């Protein structure tokens, strides 16, 4: 039986987890008790909720958002440190506690990490936290010297009384500063004044990541912990009918078979033993009404949506029907894309511990610690105050681990069946691939009318697509319109006088969710179709877009920037095609140029992707560049990947049939930052927005073939 070593539930728990990590690092095999000895040093001062300063000047910055590779952990720390004016070399970061956030009246604000929001929607208050702490520290020093604040300067964590050259370090005044009332009316620095923010500083999380040291959700180890492997009904929405666990229960290491309405799990003393025993279960599922669903039935469902005269209208401008009727030339096209899995490298995982007193603790890779907390409490049947979530590093997120908290619900349900024992639930890759919340499949019909000069006078779109919001956030629907299903079509920057954008929601049984840049497929459809229109008008795709954008439009600026950087219009070697696209979203404006060729095996090779992004402001240009690379590889995968459905289930099961790009497939990626100032846009997703359209337009330029149906197959490229 484990001892309740984790009380009280405050910073000590963080130290506890670290103690376990040290074990995991192979330094020792036995757990060293008591762990209370590792409790936080009583002399450590919290200046405010975001900032802790140690007597030796080490600064710990609390991060409310999750780190899934996007770099917010470092960028947010840079913003705090910039205003705090501390020594960056002494900065480390840690995740803020969701339970403490609840108890402290959401002092850290939202913990949700998605929509490229991490930096842009918290930059104001985290910078203010840094500035307030700096003022409190300086005030404490001034008080100690009995001099006016105005006579003191501060640099890199050292406060100087200018007239006498006396100085005090932050660590020396932290205790006194913590007692000072935080100042109001803080003036934040302008980006031009920045010394820490805006710079390509090395990421705080990387040194550990090259040593195999960070604790991902899968790496949590607790005393006496058991492991669980899960099987969910292969047909979405099905229920568990019966399980014959006779063989499994006799297998080595197996502790329990946990049955729930919609899953069965085996708990054992190692994951491999749990998973092996899972395979020995004889499970009978009630697959429900969806056992016969297939790609064909899904296509029929979407086509029914396209034909639906009662589809909702997301945007009306002028009279598109009349303008089409009077157009000199009408261009029509149908585009489609399949369901896609997120395929995070780390499968879904949740360690849960239901204590004898009912308190539930969870360790998980989550994009939203608060959502995990609420889910854990609900699954445990306790109020949220009686739950805690420890946020680990995420082995990728891409939208999979935010709104859906299925893994937490399951982890806590399993742990409830093993009261007093921590259980780590980890999904197999097969479960992960087949129980995702997928990027929605969609079919879109587009029609546009050109006048005699080749000007676009009408644009009509009919979108048939499952709704992410209907599944995950129904209250965000507006008159039956899911903005994520129509974005980029319903909010075009192009000056087209007559527009009508319709949306037919067709949900089907496959769960859908936020997949990097939700609605991203519409950018592909729109920008490929605009390319078709440019061709129909006999115009250069860049000039054609320029003509439809206001001179001050940031879409135009990023197009100019990318055209210049990529050498638009310059000669290309034989066998290379070039294409472009521009899409705004997630607070930023992104334009991309792709260069492609056809490889010896007949497959598509993307050689180069230049992307210009105006995010108004940026915090770490190197992390932005890494995100551009990341968006390119995610977009590249999305051209070829597909989740197909047969007998109600997703057919792909692992990386052999859901193939990800490899190192040799990766294009050269060049990011051009063109921050125009005055606003804060994201970087986690904008880079993907123009990617696929730029590539497919390049394919057209090279081969004359329009790819309108994804996934792209080699046959589509053949002459």
């Amino acid at each position, binding site marked *: 039986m484990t001892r309740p070593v984790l009380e009280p539930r405050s910073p000590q728990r963080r130290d506890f987890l670290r103690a376990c990590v040290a074990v995991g690092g192979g330094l020792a095999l036995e757990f060293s008790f008591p762990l209370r000895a590792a409790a936080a040093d009583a002399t450590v001062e919290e200046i405010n909720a975001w900032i802790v300063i140690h007597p030796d000047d080490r600064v710990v910055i609390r991060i409310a958002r999750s780190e899934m590779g996007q770099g917010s952990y470092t960028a947010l720390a840079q913003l705090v440190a910039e205003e705090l004016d501390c020594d960056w070399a002494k900065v480390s970061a840690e995740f803020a506690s969701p339970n403490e956030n609840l108890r402290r009246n959401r002092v850290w604000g939202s913990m949700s990490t998605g929509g490229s929001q991490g930096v842009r929607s918290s930059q104001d208050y985290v910078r203010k936290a840094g500035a307030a702490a700096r003022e409190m520290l300086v005030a404490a020093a001034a008080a100690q010297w009995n001099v006016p604040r105005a006579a003191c300067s501060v640099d890199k964590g050292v406060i100087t009384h200018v007239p006498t050259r006396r100085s005090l370090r932050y660590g020396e005044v932290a205790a006194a500063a913590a007692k000072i009332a935080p100042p109001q009316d803080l003036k934040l620095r302008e980006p031009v004044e920045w010394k820490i923010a805006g710079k390509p500083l090395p990421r705080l999380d990387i040194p550990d990541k090259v*040593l195999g*040291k960070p604790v991902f959700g899968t790496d949590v180890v607790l005393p006496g912990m058991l*492991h669980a492997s899960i099987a969910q009904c292969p047909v979405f929405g099905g229920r568990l009918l019966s399980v014959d666990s006779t063989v499994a229960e006799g297998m080595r290491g197996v502790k329990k078979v946990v049955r729930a309405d919609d899953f069965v799990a085996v708990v054992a003393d190692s*994951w491999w033993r749990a998973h092996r025993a899972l395979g020995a279960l004889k499970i009978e599922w009630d697959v429900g009404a969806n056992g016969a669903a297939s790609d064909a039935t899904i296509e029929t469902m979407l086509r029914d949506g396209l034909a639906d005269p009662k589809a909702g209208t997301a945007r009306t401008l002028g009279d598109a029907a009349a303008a089409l009727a009077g157009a000199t030339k009408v261009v029509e096209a149908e585009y489609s894309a399949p369901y896609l899995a997120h395929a995070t490298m780390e499968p879904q995982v949740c360690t849960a511990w239901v204590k004898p007193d009912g308190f539930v603790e969870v360790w998980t890779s989550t994009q939203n610690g608060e959502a995990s907390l609420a889910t854990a409490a609900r699954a445990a049947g306790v109020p949220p105050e009686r739950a805690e979530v420890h946020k680990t590093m995420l082995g*990728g997120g*891409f939208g999979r681990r935010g709104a859906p908290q299925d893994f937490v619900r399951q982890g806590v349900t399993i742990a409830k069946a093993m009261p007093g024992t921590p259980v780590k639930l980890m999904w197999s*890759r097969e479960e992960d691939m087949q129980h995702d919340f997928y990027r929605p499949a969609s079919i879109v019909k587009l029609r546009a009318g050109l006048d005699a000069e080749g000007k676009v006078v009408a644009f009509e779109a009919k979108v048939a697509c499952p709704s992410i919001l209907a599944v995950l956030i129904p209250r965000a629907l507006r008159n039956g319109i899911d903005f994520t299903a129509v974005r980029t079509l319903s909010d075009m920057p192009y000056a087209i006088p007559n527009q009508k954008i319709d949306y037919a929601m067709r949900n089907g049984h496959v769960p859908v969710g936020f997949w990097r840049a939700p609605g991203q497929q519409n950018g592909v459809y729109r920008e490929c179709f605009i390319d078709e229109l440019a061709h129909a008008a006999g115009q250069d795709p860049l000039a054609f877009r320029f003509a439809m954008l206001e001179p001050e439009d940031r879409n135009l600026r990023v197009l100019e920037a990318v055209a210049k950087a990529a050498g638009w219009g310059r000669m290309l070697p034989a066998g290379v095609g070039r294409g472009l696209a521009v899409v705004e979203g997630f607070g930023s404006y992104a334009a991309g140029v792709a260069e492609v060729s056809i490889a010896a095996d007949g497959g598509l090779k993307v050689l180069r992707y230049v992307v210009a992004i105006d995010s108004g402001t940026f915090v770490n240009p190197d992390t932005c560049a890494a995100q551009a690379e990341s968006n390119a590889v995610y977009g590249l995968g999305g051209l070829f990947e597909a989740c197909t459905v047969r007998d109600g289930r997703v057919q792909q099961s692992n990386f*052999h049939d859901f193939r990800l790009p490899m190192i040799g497939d990766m294009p050269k990626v060049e990011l051009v930052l063109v921050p125009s100032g005055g606003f804060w846009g994201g970087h986690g997703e904008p880079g993907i927005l123009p990617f696929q359209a730029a590539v497919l337009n390049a394919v057209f330029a090279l081969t004359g073939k329009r790819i309108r149906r994804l996934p792209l197959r080699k046959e589509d490229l053949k002459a």
Partner: protein
Amino acid sequence: MIALDVNGRIRNLDVEPEMPLLWVLRDHLNLLGTKYACGIAQCGACTVHMDGQPVRACVVTAAAAAGKRIVTIEGLSQPEMHRVQKAWIEHQVPQCGYCQAGMIMAAVALLESTPKPTDADIDAAMTNLCRCGSYPRVREAIHAVANGA
């Protein structure tokens, strides 16, 4: 009992001979740097060295690993950080980092067998999957090590 030589230490383990080395490392030796991601030798997140060769620990049984010299990411940095790990920091390679232990083990093995790898050598040897897009920096860091940077 199975005796395994892991990071220079002999470990005697009471595990099934067919248990994959990955799970021996993770669940029985608490060496958690080596990751599970596919279980079918497709992704390389579990890459470790066995007698100096890169292997995918999810498909090497404990019995097959017995008597072999196993080195994991934790052993690579003993007594000090490997030059490949240093290059990984210098070039800011990892993003989420989940695949990076395997990526580094594969890169170390490549550089040991081919000290000056070409891009084609890198494409052929570095078959590890990364969902975040660390590939360009992986390539850059490998070339930097090869060039003594």
